[in-house]
């Protein structure tokens, strides 16, 4: 005689300490095992794409801040690159180097947050998170020094960057870049040697490269599964083709691999920033464009490698200052669709840790 158990539905609701924002997961569970998983998004929908149709391209840049609010610089960069290709605007070289520096700084800050919250989801009561926030605070200080805001930076402009960094920016940046490698080693050592963390994350949330590519996974999650795809090397934009860096790739595709890939990427970002700092030329930081830029009618899909993966912007222009269609390809939304496969059959604790490793930002899921 065996005892049967009935599955029940658990609602990991919109307000929850670990859903990284407001979105809802309906889980059908059998005891502690997840049988099925249903995601309901839309709690943070602010109709950015519709509002963008009423505004000029420059006025649309703040929308990208708030879409992926943890990677504002990358979002800005993506939109500006797309519009520049559409409107055929030249970008001075100094501006490209500045863009690279700030995008990589943003990547370090975002990965610090992602890894920190992953370890917190595994239960470490925010201690590693706060350690990683040390460096993130310094980076946000640098952002504030330059453009006045820490999170929603609105720094890139069509044709360059908004402001020239102040003189005290460069020594602070050099100091940060000098102490970052040792700090990253500290974070690595603090968490990696921890057997509890390894037991929580090894062989958890595995996705094979075939499934990843079939599901359009991008970013560190894809690279964690072993697929060496990085837009900075595949379709170099700005001055990435002049930078010497490597792309870390995982082996199994579990949570631990994604964590390690993000950690390695912060090291590579430090390299890139250092090279950019050495090689940056003098020059203007922006080209002048008309206030209401009217690009040629046409469409374009421009993409950048943000901290979460390929952040794409699909723009359709009809010759007017406002875009006819403005669509953000949010990596978090597409990555999220693979959660179901990863979490089926796993325990609830594992599903939470897997969700943390996918590094989603609900702002760009719902836009």
């Amino acid at each position, binding site marked *: 005689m065996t005892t049967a158990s009935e599955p029940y539905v658990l609602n990991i609701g919109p307000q929850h300490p670990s859903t990284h924002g407001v979105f809802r997961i309906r889980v059908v569970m059998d005891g502690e095992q997840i049988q099925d998983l249903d995601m309901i998004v839309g709690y943070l929908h602010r109709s950015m794409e519709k509002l963008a149709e009423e505004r000029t391209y420059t006025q649309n840049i703040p929308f990208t801040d708030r879409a992926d609010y943890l990677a504002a610089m990358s979002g800005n960069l993506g939109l500006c690159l797309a519009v520049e290709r559409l409107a055929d605007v030249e970008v001075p070289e100094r501006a490209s180097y500045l863009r690279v520096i700030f995008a990589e700084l943003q990547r370090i800050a975002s990965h610090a947050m992602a890894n920190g919250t992953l370890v917190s*989801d595994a239960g470490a009561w925010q201690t590693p998170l706060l350690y990683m926030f040390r460096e993130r605070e310094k980076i946000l200080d640098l952002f504030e020094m330059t453009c006045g805001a820490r999170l929603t930076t609105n720094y890139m402009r069509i044709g360059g960057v908004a402001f020239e960094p102040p003189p005290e920016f460069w020594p602070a940046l050099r100091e940060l870049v000098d102490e970052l490698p040792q700090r990253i080693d500290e974070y690595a050592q603090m968490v990696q040697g921890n*057997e509890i963390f390894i037991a*929580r994350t090894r062989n958890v949330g595995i996705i094979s490269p075939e499934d990843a590519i079939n599901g359009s996974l991008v970013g560190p999650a894809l690279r964690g599964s072993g697929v060496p795809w990085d837009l900075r090397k595949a379709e170099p934009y700005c001055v990435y083709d002049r930078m010497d860096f490597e*792309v870390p790739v995982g082996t199994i595709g579990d949570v631990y691999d994604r964590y390690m890939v993000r950690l390695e990427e912060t090291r590579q970002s430090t390299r890139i920033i250092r090279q950019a700092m050495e090689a940056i030329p003098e020059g203007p930081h922006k080209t002048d464009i008309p206030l209401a830029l009217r690009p040629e009618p046409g469409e374009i899909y421009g993409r950048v490698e943000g901290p979460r993966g390929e952040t794409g912007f699909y723009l359709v222009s009809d010759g007017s200052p406002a875009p006819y269609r403005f669509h953000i390809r949010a990596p978090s939304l597409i990555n999220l669709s693979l959660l179901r496969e990863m979490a089926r059959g796993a325990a609830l604790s594992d599903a939470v840790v897997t969700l943390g490793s996918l590094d989603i930002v609900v702002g760009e899921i719902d836009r």
Partner: protein
Amino acid sequence: MSEQPAIVKRQLPATPMARQIIERGTLREQAARMPFAAKVIGAIFGIGFLIANAGIAYIVVDGRLDGMWYDFRDLGYAIERLRVELRTVDGTIGGQELGAILAYWVPALIGGIGILSFLGGFLLIGSWIERRLLARFQIRTGPNRVGPYGLLQPLADALKLMQKEVLIPAGADRMLFYLPPVLIFIPAMLAWGPIPWAENMAYLDLNVGLLYVVSITSLSVLAVWLAGWSSNNHYALLGSMRTVAMMVSYEIPISLALLSVVLVTGSLRLSAIVAWQADHYLWLALLLPFALFTFFFSSTAEINRTPNDIAEAESEIVAGFHTEYSGMKAGLFLAVELGNALLTGALVATFFLGGYTLFGLEEWIPGYLILGAKATFGYFIFIWLRATLPRFRIDQLMNFAWKYLIPLSIANVLLVAIEASIAARWDAPAIIVYGLFVIVNIALTAYAVRAWARAIGYAMDVEQPAQPIFAKTIGGLKAARSLRGEA
């Protein structure tokens, strides 16, 4: 940008917050900045403390205090004298002597009120200690707004909780919903009874004290389950089922570890255990290291603290079994967690660290201060564990209890039984016998801990798990496959 200076001095941080942090300086700098009057008062206190200690040393060494009722090193003498005085009261009530009744009830009430006040006082300061210490582990400050250095923060929290609206979830059983906070506070209070604070200062010196402690802590399992069940909430139920399974599983290693303590000391009475450790000048922590480790780790499971706080895993099930509780009910759950942590510290101190004795120092320093220091040290270890370790998954926890701790605990009991019977029959001086046992036990523990883990198939990652590979070429699936073919 080669013309810029290499490093700019640190007083140019970008944000006001960073500037504030740098200007605040270290503790030494802050102390040097205090006003002169404060420094004078501090100096007076310091010198007064030294003089008081010298006076106490003189009195103690002179032997003036021994056995007198004003011997503040052992408040039991005062209580004994009070009892003697009360017994001489004349009168009868209902056929009973008034003296006997008073001599029983008044010291009982005094002791009970004493324990409650101590517990309540600790709850006020313990929360502060925990938050400040956690903050220090996390490179931040902790509460520092409410009162000087945030000392009034626990009071503010208690007042806030008391004035919150009490919500009862729809569909929850009213009576069963009100019961758990009360039910869980009772064992937390009762278990303090047998603990000896000094030679005559055990409130309930039962001759089955150890068994009493184990059985009272097992009462809180029912309270936890009831809290989860009566909330009519899936999260709460999930949390409480996890907790019940975990608590019940970890009671066995606790009992086995304490069984080895009983085998060595030959008594269940806590004051006898402490006396054994004082007489043999040997802490049971040295003689029974595995029992200490088992007891400590299983206690973290019993009181739901990290790394075993799966029941209130904030990142997964919000707050587990006390999700639906608001106001002072939730406050009681949190208070009980705190009180239980100190209780476990006191129990570890009593069983394994010598209790209120400190190799003869309790003649000078009052025993209750020594025990308080040891209990606080245990509490500090709990906070340390909480700040650094992530939490286990529930099936990993259960595996650990059933496959690892219980077999090893049984082996430990066997070993200790053999040693105890040897000690009873061997005529050598105690230091040789117990010294030998200490060495054998520590060596065997160090070996068995790793060997057994390997025997049950736990591949300990002494070598780091695979590091990420650095890809030379970009590609899709083919590149991935070729990378794996190489790797």
